[in-house]
C-alpha cells in the first residue's frame, strides 16, 4: 500500500453521512415518482409532505454530523460541493421551470420546489463528503 502522510485520517471511522445522504435521495426519488404517477391530476399531499419532511430531517442530521467531524478536509469538501451545487442549481432550475411552465401551482408547486431544494443540497453534500473523507486535511 502506498505510504500516506496521515493514515489515521484516511482510515478512521466517520459518521454514516454517505448512507444518510443515500436515504435522503431515496425519499426524494420516491416522492418524485409518486408525484409524477399522479400528475397532471391532483396529487395527494400527505405522502409527499411526509417523505419531504423525513428527507429534510435527515439532511439536517447530516449537516450536524458533518459539522462535528474534527480534522476534516474542508477545502476539498468546499471545492467539490461548491461546483456540484452550481451544477445542481442549474438542473433543479430546469425542473422548476418545467413545473411552472406546465401550470403547477399552489401547495403542489411548493412541495415540488422544496423537494428540489433538498435534492440540490443533498447531492453536493454527498459528493463533497465522498471526496473529502479521503483527502489530507493539511493539504
Amino acid at each position, binding site marked *: 500500500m502506498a505510504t*500516506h502522510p496521515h493514515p489515521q485520517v484516511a482510515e478512521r471511522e466517520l459518521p454514516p453521512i454517505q448512507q444518510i445522504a443515500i436515504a435522503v435521495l431515496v425519499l426524494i*426519488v420516491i416522492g418524485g415518482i409518486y408525484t*409524477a404517477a399522479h400528475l397532471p391530476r391532483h396529487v395527494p399531499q400527505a405522502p409527499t409532505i411526509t417523505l419531504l419532511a423525513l428527507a429534510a430531517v435527515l439532511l439536517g442530521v447530516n449537516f450536524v454530523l458533518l459539522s462535528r467531524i474534527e480534522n476534516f478536509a474542508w477545502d476539498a469538501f468546499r471545492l467539490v460541493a461548491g461546483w456540484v451545487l452550481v451544477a445542481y442549481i442549474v438542473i433543479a432550475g430546469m425542473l422548476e421551470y418545467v413545473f411552472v*411552465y406546465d401550470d403547477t401551482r399552489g401547495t403542489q408547486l411548493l412541495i415540488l420546489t422544496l423537494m428540489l431544494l433538498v435534492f440540490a443540497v443533498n447531492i453536493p453534500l454527498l459528493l463533497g463528503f465522498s471526496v473529502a473523507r479521503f483527502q489530507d486535511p493539511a493539504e
Partner: protein
Amino acid sequence: MASIAEPTPQAFSGARPRVTIVPLRLLPVVVVVIVGMVVAIATNSLWALDFYHVVGGGLWTGIDLFLGLVLGPIIGSMSIPARVELTSRLMPKLLLIMPTLVTMTLGAGFQLARKLGNLSASYPNHGWLVASYIVVGVMATIALGLLEPANIAVLFELRKPEPNGARIGRLMKVFIYTSGITGLMQIATLVIMTKLASS
C-alpha cells in the same frame, strides 16, 4: 462479472497523466445542448421533444449497457497501469456526458408525455409509464448515491502524488459493479420504452 485485481503501489510509480476532474473545454457543448432543450420545452415542438428524448435516451441506454456489460468487465481484468490510464481519461468525460444525457432524456420525455396526454391515468399504458419512473428512480439512486461518488473519489485519488492503491481498488469495484447493475436495468428501460412506443 470479471474479478477485479487490487492495485499495488508499483502500479502508480511510473509517469501518470495529469488527471482532469471536469474537462472544461467540453462545457460549451453541454450549455448548447441544455439551451436547446429549454427551447424545445418552451416551444413544445413535437419534433424537438422527440429528438431530445430519443437521442438522449438512446445514447444513455447504449452507453450504460456498453459500460456495464462490455467495458466494465474488461476494465476489471486489465492490468493496473492500463486501468488507471483508461479510467483517468474516460471518467472525466463521463462526468459531463452522463448528466447531460439524463437531463435531456428525462426533461424532454416528461414534456413529451404531457403533450401527448400519456401522463393521464386514463392512458392505457399508464402502469408501464409508472414502471419506467421506478426504473429511472432506482438507476438515479445507484448512479448518484454510489457510482458518481466512487467515480469522483477515484479521480481525486489519482491526482495525489502517492495514490492509495487499495482505496482505488475498492472504489473501482463500486464503479464497475454499479455500472453493471445500471446496465442490466437499462434492459428493463428498453422493454418498457419499446412497449410504450408500439402501442
